[in-house]
């Protein structure tokens, strides 16, 4: 559990981060979202003390972060940044093993960990271990960057716009990968983004920052349904709100018995995608499948009713 207590950073008397308090549960993804200059990166960087807070405190699993030397603290916290920050003169294996080497792991333990992580990120170790960052695609570089941040099994992973430099298609894939890996490893992740779509998609909880203040900290559904301020409402996007809400729920919630024609959708498909499929193919209902077996249908009316009930 990460507890942030009234943390403040002043630059020339102006508060970049203004008395922010929040608690992050172990094993969850928390997305910090805001416009540029909202203080979201500063908030993140105060957690591993790349920026020293002017006042307030942070504690990880009950231990205050000020109890350790800065570099020792940072070795226990994963850190992934925009543009990956890989060392160009080191191989993929050497990059991923950077923190374990700082921690003095044995060579064999490091090698096993590197292979394990490359497998986890769907990069065959024999093929990628000895390559240099310049020989990888943008998406691969980003994956190595995240693998490096995870290498020492940190208590906490901080990510500062990790997907900011990727094109939209690679970005969607990277987000799905991150979610899968987080569920597999049970990591605790704090992720900074300027993209509300990404925050809603990835975050178990979303923290919205505006001018240094934390204006709302809640689940994605609550943020969309009940934005605390006009700013949050603007961030979640006026006309897109119902669609964003629908994107949070899977088909399995609305399955009913009855006939439906056309191609079946897996039950984990979001209501938004099902709505889109209905509109595109002119159907009133779509069949829903589980492990390839059709288990029922979801009707356009049911989706509409759900969207209305959420307001």
């Amino acid at each position, binding site marked *: 559990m990460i507890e942030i207590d009234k943390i403040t950073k002043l630059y020339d008397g102006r508060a970049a981060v203004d008395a922010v308090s929040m608690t992050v549960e172990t094993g969850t993804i928390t997305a910090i979202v805001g416009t540029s200059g909202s203080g979201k990166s500063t908030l993140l960087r105060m957690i*591993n003390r*790349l920026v020293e807070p002017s006042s307030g405190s942070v504690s990880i699993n009950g231990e205050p972060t000020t109890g350790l030397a*800065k*570099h*020792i*603290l*940072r*070795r*226990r916290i994963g*850190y992934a*940044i*925009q*543009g*990956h*920050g*890989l*060392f*160009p*003169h080191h191989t993929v294996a050497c990059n991923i093993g*950077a*923190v374990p080497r*700082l921690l003095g792991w044995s060579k064999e333990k490091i090698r096993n960990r590197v292979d394990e992580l490359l497998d986890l990120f769907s990069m065959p170790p024999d093929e990628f271990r000895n390559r*240099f*960052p*310049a*020989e990888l695609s943008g998406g691969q570089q980003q994956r190595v*960057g995240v693998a*490096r*941040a995870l290498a020492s099994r940190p208590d906490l992973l*901080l990510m500062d716009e990790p997907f900011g430099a990727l094109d939209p298609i690679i970005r969607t894939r990277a987000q799905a990968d991150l979610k899968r890996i987080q569920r597999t490893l049970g990591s605790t992740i704090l992720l900074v983004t300027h993209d509300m779509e990404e925050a809603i998609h990835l975050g178990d909880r979303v923290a919205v920052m505006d001018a240094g203040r934390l204006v709302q900290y809640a689940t994605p559904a609550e943020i969309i349904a009940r934005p605390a301020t006009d700013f949050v409402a603007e961030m979640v996007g006026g006309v897109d709100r119902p669609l964003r809400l629908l994107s949070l729920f899977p088909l399995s919630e609305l399955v009913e018995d009855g006939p439906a024609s056309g191609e079946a959708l897996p039950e984990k498909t979001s209501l938004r995608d099902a709505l889109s499929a209905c509109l595109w193919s002119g159907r009133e209902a779509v069949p829903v499948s589980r492990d390839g077996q059709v288990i029922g249908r979801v009707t356009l009316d049911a989706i509409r009713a759900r969207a209305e009930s959420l307001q």
Partner: protein
Amino acid sequence: MSQRSQPALSPPGVLFAVLGLASLLAPYMTLAANRIVAGEGVPAWSLGSPGTTLGGLAALIGGLALGLPAGRPALRLGGAFIGFAGLIWLLVAGTSSLLGEAGEFARVSPGAGFWCLLVVLSLLLADALTNLSPGPLTRLGVLLTALAALAAILTSGALADLSIMQEYESRAASFWNAGVRHLWLAFGSLGAAALIGFPLGILSHRSDRLRRSLLPVLSFLQTIPSLAMFGIMIPILAWVAATVPGAREMGVAGIGFMPAFLALVLYSLLPVVANTVAGLDATPPAAFEAARGMGMTELQRLLRVELPLGLPVILAGLRIVLVQNIGLAVIAGLIGGGGFGTFVFQGLNQTATDLILLGALPTVLLALVSAIVMDILVELSSPQSGSQR
């Protein structure tokens, strides 16, 4: 030139052939009655009997012709070697036949034609090598082979009757002493400048204020003419030697090795410091941020990230310093600092051109070899990712 009508000629090859043939028209060697008087030029074809000169001339012209075809770098390289062989052949044959007919104190030296042909053939060699784009280790091999060939020719005694070799004969011991002294001046000042410059460069990289005040001072030092620098050094060091106890025993004096060495160190500081700063600046900001965020200490960041990434630029700075110092060290001869400059200034005083060359040629060779070796080191130190993309 009839070759022009043929297609697929290498443009530089044509230029080298034209320049080479033109150089053959200039006097190949000079014959003088003694070591002081001005000599008389002798063209290549009248160096000796046709039987002895024809082979050399044929090799020279054939070598230049082999340098013509485009897209055949190995053939052109071979042409350069054949040309060099002809060049040496003519020199050896010319020396013995010209001296055979002259008086006891007569001296023969290579003339303008020889030097021009040497340059042209070197350019052909370099051009062909560049087209072959050999790896760093191959280049080192070529360099060592060339040096071994040069050493073999010089020690074989075939050129012993040349004027410059006679100047060497009468000063063999002092020549090697001067060589060692020259190396001490150039490499010692490089080492001292590196010892002072690296820390200064690292500190300047960390502190903008230091950088802004230090670099202009070092730039200013660089603009002081070398003779003026010695002039400034003489009274200062003489005063230090006279007043600081123990300084004189340590070799501090107004003239001699110490002022020359100090001046070279001062000239070296700007390239060393500026390139260290530039090399450290070459670290991508994201990589630096990641290194900080993952918990590297300041020293670990410097040793594992910044220095390895900056090494090629830092070595390039050392290369500039080394070549610059080998040349500048000649001036040390003027204030009794030793080195090859001693012969240059003795030769100037005696108007003995060959004595000047005895100082100048080894200096040029030393600078050339150092530059090539440093280039190889710079390439070897570049990150692999750079050479693969």
